[in-house]
């Protein structure tokens, strides 16, 4: 079984990635990077990461989230995060990245926030 499973769905012009598993150094981080690159190549630049099923992330995974955020912003897109677990929220607090990412607990609210 893959370390990180990613399922893509479309909600209007926002692409939602439902993710479950681990975003850690190696396979998990690479899977996220590959998914984001593919979406940008397909001109899908409004991306919502649903992290409800991500129970574990390490510093490499956090770095990959930052890398995704930067790549999407550079391409004039928007990356937002949905349904952080408490542990992931704690890690984003420790790293002060909660001040960087746009984070939501409600999908409808997240979808409505895209400009």
């Amino acid at each position: 079984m893959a370390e990180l499973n990613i399922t893509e769905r479309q909600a209007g012009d926002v692409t939602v990635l439902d993710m479950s598993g681990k975003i850690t150094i190696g396979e998990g981080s690479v899977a996220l990077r590959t998914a984001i690159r593919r979406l940008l190549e397909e001109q899908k630049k409004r991306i919502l990461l649903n992290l409800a099923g991500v129970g574990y992330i390490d510093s490499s995974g956090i770095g990959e989230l930052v890398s995704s955020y930067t790549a999407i912003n550079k391409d004039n897109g928007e990356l937002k995060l949905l349904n952080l677990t408490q542990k992931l929220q704690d890690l984003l607090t420790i790293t002060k990245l909660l001040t960087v990412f746009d984070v939501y607990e409600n999908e409808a609210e997240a979808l409505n926030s895209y400009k």
Partner: protein
Amino acid sequence: MEWLSERPCLNPVTVETTELSLPSRLETVAEAAAAVADFVSRSGVSDDAAFGIDMAVREAVTNAVIHGNSKDEDKVVDIILKSSPEAVEISVHDQGAGFNPNEVPDPTAEENLLKTSGRGILFMRNFMDEVDWFVPPEGGTTVRMLKRR
């Protein structure tokens, strides 16, 4: 490693020790984490402490494999796990050129927030009660991490 034997706080009657020597490849991170999880579950720490130890070990071993040993599979990562009534102590040793944690920029500084790496030490320090780096006489770098009960 001399400094390990100089720690009188550990009661030799009740100390459990496990040593691992693993190759310098990325898969080692998960292998080490699994071994530590097994050790920690036997030592009876809380779930929160076990989570923190797991995070810290993954970061320490990642650093040893990537930055210490540069993924050179001729070099190994040595891990020593000690459990006592007072604490769980984990040492991770690499065979690299040496490491100074003070040279790592603060990843929470405004100008570093969007950097894609450099947060591992922050996690190690956050989740463990003590984190120290040593350069032992035989070379390389050892990081010793302690989680009190």
